[in-house]
């Protein structure tokens, strides 16, 4: 399956990425290659194999409803590119 420039632009918008013309061309090519590889996998006969999102046969992993300490505010914000007081600062949204 060939990924078009329009597909790349759509995904870039969803991810809020700004791409140059060169990048769009490069990603279209690279993503097409990746899709081609997945199509190879699609040739495998999986009749009778139930779909799964996990490699391990685990189910019902629960956590009890008990409060544990949260991060100190300074630590929570330590990696933020911008902050104001105890809050994360982001480009304007409204």
């Amino acid at each position, binding site marked *: 399956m060939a990924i078009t420039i329009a597909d790349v632009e759509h995904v870039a*918008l969803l991810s809020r990425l700004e791409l140059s013309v060169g990048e769009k061309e490069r990603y279209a090519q690279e993503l097409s290659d990746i899709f081609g590889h997945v199509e190879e996998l699609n040739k495998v006969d999986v009749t009778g194999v139930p779909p799964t*999102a*996990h490699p391990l046969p685990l189910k019902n*992993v629960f*956590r009890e409803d008990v409060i544990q300490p949260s991060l100190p505010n300074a630590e*929570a914000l330590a990696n933020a590119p911008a902050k104001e007081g*105890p809050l*994360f*600062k*982001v480009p304007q949204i409204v």
Partner: protein
Amino acid sequence: MDFEIVIGFEVHTELKTKTKVWCACANEFGGPPNSHVCPVCLGMPGSLPVLNREAFTLALKTALALQCDVPRITTFDRKNYYYPDLPKNYQISQNDKFLGTGGYLEIDLGEAGHKKIRIHNIHLEEDAGKNIHPEDKNVTYSLVDLNRAGVPLLEIVTQPDIRSKEEAAAFMTQMRNFLQYLDVSDCKMQEGSLRFELNMSLRPKGSDAFGQKVEVKNLNSMSVVLKCIDAEFDRQSDMLRNGERVMSETRLWDEVKNETRAMRSKERANDYRYFPDPDLVDVDITPEIRAAAQATIPELPLARRRRFEEQYGLPAYDASVLTASFTTANYFEKAVESHPSPKGISNWIMTEGLAWLNKQPEDTTIDDFPVKSAAIAELVKLIDTGAITGKIAKQVFPIMLETGKSPAVIVEEKGLKPVDDSALGPIIDEVLADPRNEKTIADLRGGKAAAMGALMGAVMKRSGGKANPATVTPLIRKKLGLE
């Protein structure tokens, strides 16, 4: 052309757990910004979500109480979108194997009878954080508090079964009441723990086809939802009359202009690309897990209403009004526990209690009423035992409301005890000797029974409402030689 409204709701309710749904941070409204956050709810790479057992149990309880079909296996998916209040850039939700499908909420429409509002699906997901927009108009940034990110959120999606604003209002109040009975959520709309998103379309009256549906977000109270229904009806019907097509889109409520507005293209660019969340394993709802959740379902509104009629001998109307709110029904039962006079207590709650409640903001409950259940019980007891008259009680009540004092204390302080029967004699003598009452007395002697009412009124007035009507009538008759 006349149009019919077609409405479905997406109900979001925050579950009442101690911790968030995927991490052990406190699930608590308020608190200093970003004080209930950890690597999991901040979406830091390498952190792993683990499902809160209590959140799952509350969600399952709700699905079962709404008569949904609950599958054996339920799974979680990632809903991908990009917004600063969602630090992972995806919301963990359910899109494939929902916790529940089908089911219904049966709503009471008064004289119009009952109606089942069917449920499309019910699923467990996580709430987002809060964006704060600085007041200063020149500022070009927003601020984010992630305390709410990861709070367990239950979404109930209905079928488009609602056909009028009245049905929408009944659905919202009764869904809130249902969730309060289940005790799964605080249901405080002001705090956002209960939210209604509206899906609305119009179609020509008599048509079976569905029109293009518009989804409206940002509706933070029931009265706003109702306002929005009016505004959308006007907007959509104008468009249809002008031969325009209504676009199927998501719109936002503008509180200032009292109308909806389209979202901007960037806000609209949603393509959620759902896929199974590889961090979360399947939940197998075994018969044991199902039975345990089923066992936590308490008495629901309809059952409680029937019990109120049977156990307390209340009229159907009283039973329906009292049980229309979980807290009001509890208040009533607590009062009856301390003084078993159900009808007397019901009367005071329905008149004074609900009159007060109607003047308060939407989230207020009878628990906020300054007159507590024990005080109402005491007041009714004072009347029942003849310690005060109903008339005095009407004077005592506003003082209770204002001061929070017990009725017995108020009666004592204000000297509102009923007049001693021995003191009644002179009062009645004065009334009978009053020349203004001559004609009334003659009427009474002449066999006009209604005249007794007028004399009684005069006695009550002279005694300051403190005479006991039961003793006044025979005394008057005796003094007039009518016995």
